[in-house]
């Protein structure tokens, strides 16, 4: 059986393409790094797409703003319309938001704005808890609502916001916010640093209404191995990591599946069923 081909779309300045490709490979998919210099039409041959993190076009004008206008996005917009899966991680999420692929169909309805943090400004990096919400998003719908995924964030412009009052809360209610920032005990984050950027409604990821396009600010590809989960994290993932590190549990290894791999597994499951 041939493996589904996934394009890892690399704009100049993107720097997470290798680990994104590795995560796809680990769940049985066939990734190919697709650089911006190739003819856009060649993108049509793929079954799914990942836009990794980094700093496309040096974040000129706004993060994701220039890549969003390019010819590759024409093809990705077509692919999204035809229900092919598209995952934008961090800078990839910024591109999708600036292109209007999320949450709607081409109209820009949100921004990923500069972080708003008490006592700090600028770029911020830490591990957070992302709570799985009830959603038909193909990347997360196999996960139990309420489950916590410890994931790293690393960005300066990651605050989901809209000038339309209540927009993010409405998206969450409609199942278009499949991941929200939470506390270690699973409550929706109310303040910094659990909500690390001031995102409205503590939204960490937004998908389109059909659930095939997801813009996520945390980096699941950086949490694809159990051993990546840091000591600051509590809960079942930490317990598994501790077991692996202590070699207390036979058969558990630090290179085992980490919490971030779940999103790529969701993609693989969807492509297998499609």
């Amino acid at each position, binding site marked *: 059986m041939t493996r589904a081909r996934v394009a890892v779309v690399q704009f100049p300045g993107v720097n997470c393409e290798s680990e994104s490709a590795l995560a796809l490979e680990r769940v049985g998919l066939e990734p190919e790094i697709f650089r911006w210099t190739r003819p856009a039409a060649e993108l049509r041959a793929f079954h799914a797409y990942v836009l990794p993190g980094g700093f496309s*076009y*040096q974040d*000129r*004008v*706004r993060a994701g*703003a*220039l890549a*969003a*206008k*390019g010819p590759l*996005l*024409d093809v990705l*917009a077509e692919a999204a319309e035809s229900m092919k899966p598209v995952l934008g991680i961090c800078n990839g999420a910024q591109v999708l938001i*600036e*292109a*209007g692929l999320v949450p709607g169909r*081409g*109209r*820009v*309805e*949100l*921004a*990923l*704005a*500069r972080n*708003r943090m008490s006592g700090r*400004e600028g770029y911020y990096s830490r591990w957070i808890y992302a709570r799985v919400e009830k959603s038909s998003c193909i990347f997360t719908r196999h996960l139990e609502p309420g489950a916590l995924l410890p994931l790293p964030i690393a960005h300066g412009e990651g*605050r989901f*916001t*809209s*000038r*339309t009052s209540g927009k993010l809360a409405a998206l969450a209610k409609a199942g278009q916010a499949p991941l929200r920032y939470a506390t270690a005990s699973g409550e929706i984050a109310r303040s910094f640093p659990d909500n690390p950027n001031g995102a409205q409604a503590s939204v960490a990821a937004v998908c389109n209404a059909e659930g095939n396009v997801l813009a996520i600010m945390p980096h699941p590809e950086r949490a694809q191995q159990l051993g990546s989960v840091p000591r600051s994290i509590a809960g079942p993932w930490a317990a598994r990591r501790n077991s692996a590190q202590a070699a207390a549990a036979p058969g558990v290894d630090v290179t085992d599946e980490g919490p971030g791999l779940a999103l790529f597994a969701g993609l693989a499951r969807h492509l297998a069923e499609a």
Partner: protein
Amino acid sequence: MAGGSGGRAQVWVELRADDPEAISAFAVARATLEAARGLSTLRRMRLLELSGPLPALAELEELLHRSTRFYHPQKERCVVRLAGGDAPPLAHGERAVLVTERGGERRPAAERWWLHETGERIEVHEGVAWLLGFDAEADADSAIADLVMLRDRRHGLLCNPHSQDSSVADREIPLPWMGAAVGR
């Protein structure tokens, strides 16, 4: 210690070298946006506005020069306006658009530096001024509206209205500009 127009100064900061951000914005706009057909030049400047008890021009310029909280004199040059009559650094026919981060215009680190150096409390706000030049036959007013405000992949670039505000100046550049007649 007051020196500016009612204790206000407007500082226009531009890279001495070609500005990659403006070059990229220009190239992308020309390649993808219908409204950019008549766009002939695009420049970008950081715009700082200081308000409070400011010193006279020479001392003000010296303070700005001393800290990279304001600008980097090896890489950038700056022009200071203290009154509405002072000329902004616009070329003939250029139109100016101010874009600011909604709720994120203040520069606390610059304010702290100023307090430390002078003992005076001032407010520092920052935005980006885009300077647009058009071909003679272009309808600049309608082109600007369509170039600035992001609506979709084919309309707008310089301001995402969900997190930013923009203000298009008429022939005269207001002083202060930030917080004055900001459109959403």
